């Protein structure tokens, strides 16, 4: 699904070019849940922009679905640390935003508006926001806004979901709750996910594969398969194998931060 071959990216900084990524190779299969972890400032977010075609690599090749990426990929759903909902739209209208842009929904938007509205409400139901569709985003708590943001990234049933620390601003309980929401949606639809995070437990709980990045310039220095059976419950986080995995990831990152 996603193939990065020896990709480097430099951008113009104030004191000359800054190398954000160097010689990064990564491969994510269709339907795979991949997580990227690493120290802060290692170019994780740059990786997201590369995959979605928002920036072009200075060197190397990015391919999505077998075709080289030359512009915005047009099929990805994205969610970030900030929910970024539009305050002048109700929650349902916010969810319908991608449908106003992505084909084939876009051309039929007026005709199928009621159907899309129903679809938005069904999706809200699955993340526990039933009945909040007519509220405005600022009437919702941070966790609820983040759920809505997740729904917005999923409404057009993207083949690829890009998440950039989507739960970082939430409290621990809400975060774990949303892990389960994401897990359930993914179990049902099995789209490809790239989750960028600095929360190792989050990566270990959700992902099939964890890629560890080095400090800037970022490179993938380690790739771990996570073999805990699915569907996983939160209890898995308290098993010794889980703790061992998190600990070894932690050591790996501590190691690359030093160097």
């Amino acid at each position, binding site marked *: 699904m996603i193939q990065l071959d020896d990709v480097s990216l430099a951008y113009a900084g104030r004191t000359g070019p800054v190398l954000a990524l160097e010689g990064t190779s990564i491969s994510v299969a269709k339907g795979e849940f991949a997580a990227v972890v690493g120290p802060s400032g290692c170019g994780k977010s740059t990786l997201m*922009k590369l995959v*979605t*075609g*928002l920036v072009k690599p200075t060197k190397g090749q990015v391919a999505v679905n077998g075709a080289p990426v030359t512009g*915005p*990929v*047009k*099929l*990805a*759903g*994205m*969610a*970030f640390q*900030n929910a*970024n909902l*539009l*305050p*002048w739209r109700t929650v349902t209208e916010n969810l319908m*935003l*991608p449908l*106003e*842009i*992505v*084909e084939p929904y876009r051309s039929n938007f007026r005709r199928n508006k009621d159907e899309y509205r129903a679809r938005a409400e069904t999706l809200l139901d699955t993340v526990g926001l039933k009945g909040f569709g007519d509220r*405005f*985003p*600022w*009437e*919702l*708590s*941070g966790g609820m*806004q983040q759920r809505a943001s997740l729904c*917005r*990234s999923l409404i*057009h049933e993207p083949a690829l979901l*890009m998440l950039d620390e989507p739960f970082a601003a939430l409290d621990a309980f809400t975060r774990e709750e949303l892990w389960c929401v994401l897990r359930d949606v993914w179990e049902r639809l099995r789209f490809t996910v790239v989750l960028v995070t600095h929360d190792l437990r989050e990566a270990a709980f959700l992902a099939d594969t964890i890629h560890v990045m080095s400090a800037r310039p970022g490179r993938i220095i380690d790739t771990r398969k996570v073999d805990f059976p699915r569907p996983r419950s939160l209890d898995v986080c308290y098993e010794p194998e889980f703790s061992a995995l998190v600990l070894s990831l932690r050591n790996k990152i501590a190691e690359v931060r030093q160097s």
Partner: protein
Amino acid sequence: MTNRQIEALAPWIFTLGIFVFWEAAVRLLNVSSVVLPAPTEIFAAMHRYSVPLLKNSFVTLWTTLAGFALAVGFGLLRGLFVGWSRTIYRGLYPVMIGFNSIPKVAVVPILVMWFGIGEVPAILTAFLISFFPIVVNVATGLATIEPELEDVLRALGASKLDVMRKVGIPRAMPYFFGSLKVAITLAFVGTVVSETIAANAGLGHLMVQAGSNFQMPLVFAGLLLLAIEGIGMYAVTAWLEGRMTGWAFRSQQSAGG
């Protein structure tokens, strides 16, 4: 009386208080009405000259509104144009600053030479002076879209036009309606400045005429009417702002929830 009622009445009580204080001061200190007329004299002048005052206020009102309408139309278009891309924003901003820093009084004689004495220079002065805040506000609203939100849309394949229509323009609306409050007041200043320099009608013109005849109560009557018109137009734009973009105020109140 509840606190809320007192709060609602407070502006009227204060206005009345100022007039009472003014009247008392003029009477006690025996100030000549050529220097500072008492409010009662001003109201008497208003009553006596009600027809010319109303006629001239109307001229001032419609020229201001015409200039303001031009400023809104062109300001909105120009703001959208400037806010469209960073390059245009960067390139045009200094030019606009330079243009805006010219005192508009200095432009009036030129306008009079071009269009003759009358309403046209007043309208154009009002337009020139109130145009700038609208452009700047609309452009700023557009230019400060959250980059992440733009990424979300672009990753969906949205064009620049889509991003502007779905996010940029609605987002710039609170800025736009906010700027109208500033612009209408400035437009008013522009009209009166132009009328004082060269016009054959309007409150500014009337005040200059009355001043040269030492009819101070009439000058102050004109001043009072200017204040009333100014407050009225401000109130209308403020109401419009709350009406059109109430979400911006409410979302600020409960941000973060």
